[in-house]
C-alpha cells in the first residue's frame, strides 16, 4: 500500500467545482485514485456522483479546479480531450449501446476509429472480450435482442476494447431487473480482481464490500467521508453517512 501512495495517481481531481446554472453541484472535490485501486462512490441521488465521474472524462467540464490523468492536466477546450477520453472507459446506467451495430460491431468500433486498429485485429480483440463477459454466442446479434444484463456486459466489453487505464461505472446495475444485477456485478468483480483501476458509483453493497479498496460517501457536492469498506459500513464517523447507510440498508 505504501509504495502505491508514492506513485502518481491515475486520476486526480484538485478543488473541482461544477455549476449547472445557479446550481452548485460539485463544491470543491479533492480526490485521487491510484493504479489498481477500486473506489466505490455512494451517496444520495442528486449529490453529484455522476457529475464527478463525468468531470473525469470531460463529459462535463469543471469550471474551477483541475483534473489530472496520470499527472497530466489537459485543458478542456484547448487540449486534446479525445486523447484523454480514449484512456478512460465509461459504463453508463442506460448502457448506450449503438443500436445499429451488432455486439461485435459495438466493440470493434472505437478500436478501429480511434486507435486506428485493423479490422481483423480489432475483431480478435473484441471476440476475446466478448467471451470474457460470457456472450460469445451473441456476436452477430443486435442490442435490441439482448437482456439488460447482457447489454451492460457488452457495454463493459466495448469500454475494455480501448484498453483503458481506468474504468468509470455510473450506476451500472440500477436500470436492471434485480435478477440480472448479479451477472454484471460478477463481471465487474472479475475486472477488479484482475487489477483494473475502477471508479464505481453503485449502491450494490456486496460489490463494495468484496471489491472496493475504498468507499467514498458524497453529499451535496462534497466528499463527506472516505475509508475502507469495513470502516465506512460498520463504523461511519459522520452522522450523515450513518443516516444514509441506514436508509440504503433498509431497502
Amino acid at each position, binding site marked *: 500500500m505504501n509504495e502505491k501512495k508514492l506513485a502518481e495517481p491515475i486520476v486526480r481531481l484538485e478543488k473541482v467545482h461544477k455549476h449547472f446554472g445557479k446550481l452548485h453541484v460539485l463544491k470543491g472535490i479533492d480526490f485521487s485514485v491510484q493504479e489498481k485501486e477500486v473506489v466505490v462512490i455512494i451517496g444520495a441521488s442528486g449529490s453529484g456522483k455522476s457529475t464527478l465521474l463525468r468531470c473525469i472524462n470531460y463529459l462535463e467540464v469543471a469550471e474551477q479546479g483541475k483534473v489530472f490523468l496520470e499527472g497530466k492536466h489537459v485543458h478542456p477546450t484547448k487540449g486534446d480531450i479525445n486523447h484523454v477520453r480514449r484512456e478512460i472507459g465509461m459504463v*453508463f446506467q442506460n448502457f*448506450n449501446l449503438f*443500436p445499429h451495430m451488432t455486439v461485435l460491431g459495438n466493440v470493434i468500433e472505437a478500436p478501429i476509429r480511434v486507435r486506428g486498429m485493423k479490422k481483423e485485429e480489432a475483431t480478435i480483440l473484441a471476440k476475446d472480450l466478448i467471451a470474457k463477459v460470457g456472450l460469445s454466442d451473441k456476436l452477430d446479434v443486435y442490442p435490441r435482442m439482448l437482456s439488460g444484463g447482457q447489454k451492460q456486459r457488452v457495454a463493459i466489453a466495448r469500454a475494455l476494447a*480501448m484498453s483503458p487505464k481506468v474504468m468509470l461505472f455510473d450506476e451500472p446495475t440500477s436500470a436492471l431487473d434485480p435478477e440480472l444485477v448479479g451477472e454484471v456485478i460478477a463481471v465487474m468483480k472479475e475486472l477488479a480482481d484482475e487489477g483494473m483501476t475502477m471508479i464505481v458509483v453503485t449502491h450494490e453493497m456486496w460489490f463494495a464490500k468484496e471489491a472496493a479498496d475504498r468507499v467514498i460517501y458524497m453529499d451535496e457536492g462534497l466528499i463527506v467521508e472516505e475509508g475502507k469498506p469495513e470502516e465506512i459500513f460498520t463504523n461511519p464517523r459522520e452522522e450523515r453517512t450513518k443516516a444514509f447507510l441506514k436508509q440504503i440498508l433498509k431497502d
Partner: protein
Amino acid sequence: MPDLFRYIPYFLPAAWMTLVITSFGILIGLLIGFPISLARLSKNKAAELAAKAYIGFIRGTPLLLQLFFIYFGLVRLIRLDPLPSAALALGIHNGAYIAEIFRGAIQSVDKGQIEAGRALGMSKAQTLRRIILPQAFRRALPPLGNQFIIALKDSSLASTISIRELVLTSRQLASSNYMMMEMLMLAAVFYLIMTGALSFIVHRIEYKMSVGERAV
C-alpha cells in the same frame, strides 16, 4: 372507355416529365436539406440564423410563388428554361422541408449515444458520421418518403410555366377532344401509379435498413 387507351401514348412522355422534375427536385432538395439541417443544429449562430431564415421563408410562402420567382423574377439576373426552373424551385422548396425532417431525426437520437461515442474517444465528426447519422437517416425515412410523395404531386405546378407534365398534357388533350373529365382521370391514374411505386420503394428501403430495430 376502351378508346381512352389510345391516349396513353400521349401521357407517357408527360409522366416521364413529371418524374424528371420530381427526381431532380428531390435530389436538389436532399443536397440542400442535409447541410441546412446541420447548419440549423450548429453552435455557430450565423449558420443557425441563416438556416432558420431560409426555412422560414420557404415554408411561409407558396411554392407557386417560389416557382414564378425563379422563372420570371430572376430573368434579369439569369435566364433559366422552364425545366431547370421547375426542378430548382421544387428542390429549393423541398430543401427546407427535408432540412426540418433531418433536424428532427438527428435530435431524436438519444443524447446518450453521443456521450457513448465521445467517451470512447471518438471525435465530434466521427460520432456524427458513425453513430448519430446512421440512426437519424433510418428515422428520417418515413417522413422523407412522405415528402417525396408531396414533391411528386407538387411537380404539377410546373404546368403553369408551360412544362408538359401530366396536368398540362391532360388539359391540352381535353381542349381538342372535349373529354376533360376523362383526361384528368387518366392523369390521376398515372399519379397514383407513381406515388404507389414511390411508397413501395420507400417501404422496402425502410425494411432493409431496420436491422437491429426489428425483432428477427
